[in-house]
């Protein structure tokens, strides 16, 4: 089972270095970090490498393996061909200290620039109430183990030292997003994401999402929704959407209640129980209140989509439904977004797109009651 692998490891300091070749034993089930440790114990006792948990939990052992940012402890040797030379180099975006160890202090500086969690004044310990569904979005971002692989891979700073002062990087975009979506945080944060943390430099290449060992949807769930909501006179080349910034005093309770009310009214319209004009003002009021406390626009996208549709604004309806889908929220919400899209396509007389959307809606939630607006193969009954 064991074999001798060819390793090529960068050794050196901030003054320079080179790739060194090693032949080293590998046993079944081992990861790259095991092999680096074997090098330390047998051939290179002073080889510098960071690690702690050896289980992908601490984010210490970040390096580049064959040029790709990876955790050394979570890269199994059996992912390589036995004859392949495995090249291990330090993270490129940060200055080398020695061998595989880099100076990542940039990240700790940036961390200090993000204003801290700011709960409502007077809310006492033990009195915090939040719904699971409302904390889940932020929880995704709090899975971050600060391995800084996303920072390392992001082209905005990878080879552009000059961008570092103005660009916080994906790790801190999700930090801002996390606080922004925290049901009880009271600070306005989207503005600062653009202004102070350089969100505008990001052109959504998604490289950060690809390397994240925690599988955090950095771009889809943090960057895009934030860009979407950033309201500024400035034009963001990656995302040319302008929105009106709404004053907020966040409280999820009112948000969910008001959103539910608006949804119920719109569904009554959809099912032909009442005319849109009859409930228009009520819906607007409920949605206004929900929006006033919503942490991001996408939370309400499903609702907005249906509102636009019932008011006859087809393009807006499609855009909101699409935003809702981007959000990877619950299967039911996705299904609803697809139904709305189907209705838009139907109104636009695009039968193929309609059928496809209905299929998607059914896939996510076969019993969606709104599907009764379509018969089996997607056409109107």
């Amino acid at each position, binding site marked *: 089972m064991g074999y001798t692998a060819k390793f090529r490891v960068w050794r050196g300091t901030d003054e320079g270095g080179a790739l060194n070749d090693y032949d080293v034993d590998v046993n079944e089930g081992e990861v790259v970090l095991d092999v680096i440790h074997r090098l330390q114990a047998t051939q290179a006792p002073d080889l510098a490498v*960071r690690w*702690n948990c050896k289980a992908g939990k*601490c984010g210490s052992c970040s390096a580049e393996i064959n040029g790709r940012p990876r955790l050394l402890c979570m890269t199994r040797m059996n992912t390589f061909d036995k004859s392949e030379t495995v090249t291990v180099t330090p993270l490129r975006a940060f200055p080398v200290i020695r061998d595989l160890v880099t100076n*990542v202090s940039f990240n700790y500086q940036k961390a200090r620039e993000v204003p801290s969690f700011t709960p409502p004044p007077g809310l006492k310990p033990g009195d915090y109430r939040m719904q699971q569904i409302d904390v889940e979005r932020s929880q995704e971002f709090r899975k971050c183990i600060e391995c800084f692989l996303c920072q390392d891979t992001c082209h905005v700073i990878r080879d552009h030292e000059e961008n570092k002062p103005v660009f916080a990087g994906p790790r801190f975009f999700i930090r801002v997003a996390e606080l922004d979506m925290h049901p009880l945080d009271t600070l306005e944060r989207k503005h600062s994401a653009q202004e102070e943390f350089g969100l505008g430099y990001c052109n959504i290449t998604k490289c950060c999402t690809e390397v994240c060992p925690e599988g955090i949807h950095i771009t889809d769930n943090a960057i895009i929704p934030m860009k979407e909501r950033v309201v500024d006179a400035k034009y963001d080349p990656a995302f040319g959407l302008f929105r009106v910034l709404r004053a907020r005093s966040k409280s999820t309770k009112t948000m969910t209640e008001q959103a539910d009310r608006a949804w119920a009214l719109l569904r009554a319209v959809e099912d032909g129980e009442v005319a849109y004009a009859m409930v228009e003002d009520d819906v607007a009021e409920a949605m206004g209140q929900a929006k006033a406390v919503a942490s991001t626009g996408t939370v309400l996208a499903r609702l907005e989509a249906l509102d636009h549709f019932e008011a006859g604004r087809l393009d807006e309806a499609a855009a909101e439904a699409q935003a809702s889908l981007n959000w990877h929220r619950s299967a039911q919400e996705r299904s609803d977004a697809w139904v709305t899209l189907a209705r838009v396509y139907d109104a636009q007389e695009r039968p193929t797109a309609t059928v496809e959307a209905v299929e998607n809606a059914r896939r996510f939630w076969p019993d969606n009651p709104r599907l009764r607006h379509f018969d089996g193969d997607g056409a109107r009954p």
Partner: protein
Amino acid sequence: MTDLERHSYDVVVIGAGGAGLRAAIEAREQGKRTAIICKSLFGKAHTVMAEGGIAASMGNVNSKDSWQVHFRDTMRGGKFLNHWRMAELHAKEAPQRVWELETWGALFDRTPDGRISQRNFGGHEYPRLAHVGDRTGLELIRTLQQKIVSLQQEDEREFGDPEAQLRVFAECTITEILKDDGGVAGAFGYWRESGRFIAFDAPAVILATGGIGKSFKVTSNSWEYTGDGHALALRAGGSLVNMEFIQFHPTGMVWPPSVKGILVTESVRGDGGVLKNAGGQRFMFDYVPDVFRDKYAHDEAEGDRWYTDPDNNRRPPELLPRDEVARAINSEVKAGRGSPHGGVFLDVASRLPAETIRKKLPSMYHQFKELAGVDITAEPMEVGPTCHYVMGGVEVEPDTGAAVGVPGLFAAGEVAGGMHGSNRLGGNSLSDLLVFGRRAGLGASTYVEGLDGARPAVAGADIDRAAAAALAPFNGDGAENPYTVHTELQMTMNDLVGIIRRSEEMQDALEKLDELAVRAAAVTVEGHRQFNPGWHLALDLDNMLLVSRCVARAALLREESRGGHTREDYPLMSSEWRQVNLICRASADDISVARQPLPSMPDELLQLFERDELNKYMTDDELTVLPKGDA
């Protein structure tokens, strides 16, 4: 000394895990200039690995819970060897410490009514562990880290310097506590990055360095766990208590070899996972000890009902305290009923839908998938005991965390002893870190105030001596490699002072440790001082050897089996030994172990228990205050 960097602080905290960070926050909030020193990067301490949760009797899921019940469970888990006062403070203050985390931004999983959700865990009568999936330690450390950042932001606004009152010295290792006239005067260490020396002048030092698991071969612990704080305290004149008690977590990974020991969280069992032997039998039903007989289900049907109806059924024996489960697995494997790679099967796949498993145990799913190529939603895991936690530690005053015998020295977290007695319950460590971290921060601040500005002074000669000791490994004759000595130490402790202990084996171990100490003195390292892991290990070795000797000596002395100390030659628990703590101290070249009576529990706490139960642990003399049971 030319390359010495010097700093002066009111309070120096060694360790940036849960205990150290909570202590530092408290000291800074008490207005003390505070330094935090840690061996790894900020935010990477061992606490980050904690999975299952943090125990606090908030009663969010079962309102019958209270601090009294938590106290009772903790004492039971520790087999009544716990320092009662620590267990009491811990049970009373844990809820406040958890709620406080929420005000700093922590996002725990929620109950349907929006409160912090709590899960079942071994030894806890009610669902008690606040958690975030199975990455609770990450949430805890990140929250404390971010609280520290927020304090630094305040300082930046006030002083123009974020580090004016609170500074983190990351990747810096302390090798010596410096003293002046019997009391603490500071600490000495080196930067891992440059190898340069650094000295702190400080009247108060808080040890929060965690555990000692790296002295054992199969362990869930990381390289940081070399018992530095234990050794620093000993060398500074402090004492260690309960060192014979080491927790072997029942479920570590057993395959592939390179990940052997990595933890499989107890939540797997708390959420429904069961243990089976090679014959597919749920063997834990055969291993319920008498003291727990009436608290656990007697058959599978009752155990299974308990998950949905805990009020009318007893819990399954998979959720017995860890020492019981670890011993049972050990016996099954020895009896030839183990799994292919020398463990037993932990099966959650046949018990929960795949979607639920992925949702509730995401990092376990990930860990097995990535490291072992096993899909835990489809097949059982193979698990076996792994060295996990040391109950023993620095002997402290419960209320302040002050180390006994060394004015100015404090300890909190895993490095402190007493709180968990002979066995720690899952989830009780994270709460311990916060409760006693805060108390140590407060204790150190009060101590500094009590000095009235009279600051102790570090002697230059002490610094020179510490520096010479740290450089010694560069001057050897090349006879020994630190990695080899370390490996032999790990084998010795694992095989001879491990989960089941015998007198002769421990004697062998002590001889072997003496021999290894001689060899460690001859260890030579190559290269330079800049980020040199060989050098770092050479220095850590001395600490591991000193602490291992305490473990082996105390284990040899204690002639009974209790919690994390199982003697094949003394298989029973003894009421006499329950009244005894073993206290280790170090002299210039040896250690001593002394017996010390356990502090006795006040009547009002004794009365929280049924006499029948206490009879199993205590002598009649100790129980005169309680009415005789009807039995």
